[in-house]
């Protein structure tokens, strides 16, 4: 296995998030399993963290880190009702991370037969974002001190929802040394992603998987506007570039065939 294949497999492993469906149709103790596997791309081309790509101004860009919290995974039943969970998971896309990868907390979704959409939030729900001491969680929890390593915003006693970091070369052929940082946080940047699917059945004790794609190129140059990375520097909290990035992000997740 060459390094790139290995890196991709590591990434694939890291980005599995799992929902345990309890309180099922038959018995309360039964559960189903819903796996959403996300891979990264850059304008439609598969991307591994550390690859070099080009932005709309043809500058070389190297994404080096992408972490985010994904919460409240929900399914829409055929009658239009959203079946909600209170899940939260940390997604780490940088390979060989020494940090703990938070597994999805166990969920409570009411079991139904047929669904046609998936919904989740990018970020930490307001009720969890502030006011809960991270030391109160077990270390395996994604919001614990260890589980949130690198994702805490201490000054505001809260969490970064998304951390996207990298570098670019500002001149053609120049060194890739100009850093850019998106540290998106605060309640106003909590976003919802809805992905339409073909109708699928899901029952208690089922194990079901979906492949998702997150296009980071579209997150920078998407429906909400284009972001000039050379002007980003450090974009923290709810500042204009961070707002645009999060808005773009909501339409950058797609279902892979």
């Amino acid at each position, binding site marked *: 296995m060459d*390094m790139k294949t290995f*890196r991709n497999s590591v990434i694939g492993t890291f980005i599995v998030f799992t929902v345990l469906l309890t309180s099922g149709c038959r018995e309360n103790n039964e559960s189903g399993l819903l796996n959403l596997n996300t891979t990264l791309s850059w304008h439609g081309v598969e991307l591994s963290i*550390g690859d070099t790509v080009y932005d709309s101004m043809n500058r070389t860009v190297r994404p*080096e*880190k992408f972490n985010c919290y994904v919460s409240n995974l929900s399914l829409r039943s055929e009658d239009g009702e959203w079946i909600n969970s209170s899940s939260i998971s940390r997604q780490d896309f940088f*390979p*060989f*991370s*020494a*940090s*703990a990868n938070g597994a999805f907390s166990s969920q409570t979704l009411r079991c139904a037969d047929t669904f046609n959409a998936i919904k989740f939030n990018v970020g930490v729900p307001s009720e969890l974002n502030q006011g809960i*001491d*991270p*030391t109160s969680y*077990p*270390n395996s929890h994604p919001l*614990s*001190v*260890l589980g*949130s*390593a*690198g994702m*805490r915003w*201490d*000054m505001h006693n809260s969490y970064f929802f998304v951390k996207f*970091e*990298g*570098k670019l070369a500002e001149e053609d052929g120049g*060194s*890739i*040394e100009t*850093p*850019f*940082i998106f*540290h998106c946080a605060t309640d106003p940047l909590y976003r919802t992603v809805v992905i339409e699917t073909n109708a699928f059945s899901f029952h208690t004790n089922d194990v079901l998987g979906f492949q998702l794609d997150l296009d980071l190129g579209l997150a920078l140059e998407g429906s909400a506007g284009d972001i000039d990375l050379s002007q*980003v*520097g*450090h*974009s*923290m*909290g709810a*500042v*204009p*570039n*961070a707002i645009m990035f999060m808005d773009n992000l909501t339409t950058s997740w797609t279902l892979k065939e």
Partner: protein
Amino acid sequence: MNSNRLSRITVSGFMIFIAVASGCDCGKNPTWEPTSYTIDIPAFFPPMDIPADNSMTEEGIKLGRLLFWEKALSLDHSISCGSCHAPTSSFSDPNPLSSGVNGTLGSRNASVIVNLGWSSSFFWDGRAMTLEDQIRDPVEHPLEMNVAWEVVVDRLMNDDFSELDYPQLFFDAFGTDLITEDLAVKAIAQFIRTMISANSKFDQWRRGETDLSDLEYLGYQLFLKEGGDPEVNPGGEFGADCFHCHGEAGLQFSDYLFHNNGLDPSFESDPGRVNVTGYVLDSGLFKTPTLRNVALSAPYMHDGRFNTLEEVVEHYNSGGVSSSTIDPFMKYTTGGLELAPQQKEALIAFLNTLTDTTFIQNPDFRNPH
């Protein structure tokens, strides 16, 4: 001989046999009753995960302390763990690079041993993921203690340690006098997990027991604030930007992650984390050390290149040296944080509040030999 006398003789003989048989084992008392030890988690600290196969006991901790300071764990009986992890330096090495047996110099500064029970990786390059694995390494490392564990085990089993009976101590700790590398490592890990610092001035302030001075509090605020001019760097707060890597949550002041903090333009002399992962973007990355007792643990950085906190702060204030893997947190490579002299003074005053002298003076951690 009547039957009664015969019976008395038979019974007496049987009782003598039982008495002799029960006394002729001449080995260890088969009763193993270790005393369970529970870590008292300090206020504002996270839970500590203890490995299921290495439960803490008073006897295990006692043995671990003896082994931590035992020079038989080095090739020529010249050094122990404590030789490079000096109490006065918060159990780190006051020399830039540590000396192994025969005075051979290592390539890195020995890290502080403080609150390692909460760490999620070990060594500057994170090559050990558990405390037990970390402890295993220096004994056989050619630049450190340079002795095979088999030799150490043989010494502990058979050598004369004067008043110390290591087989008995291992029995007390683990219920067996068959000494193994694994049990020795576990004992040392138990001891190290007890090495908890939670009584610095900052801890006392967090517990409401004292006040920070105005200068210290200013330093604390700078520590937590984003760096840079918000006109240039959106979100900038003119702070010192320490918290990204030295997070306050859980009061360990480390994210336990790996960063290139702008020390060198290239990494031939010590590639760091890449030697563990093979991932080229990990070149020049090293683990974020805790800031607890930072004022006591000079020199600084993985190679001990900075002698004072002033030098460290000035390094970050200048923005460091740009390179292909420099952490984006070191984003001010063209200008630095631009902290004023009084701000730098305040930052150092805050760092001094993380000094815990009760920790380094704790007699429970000192050399028992």
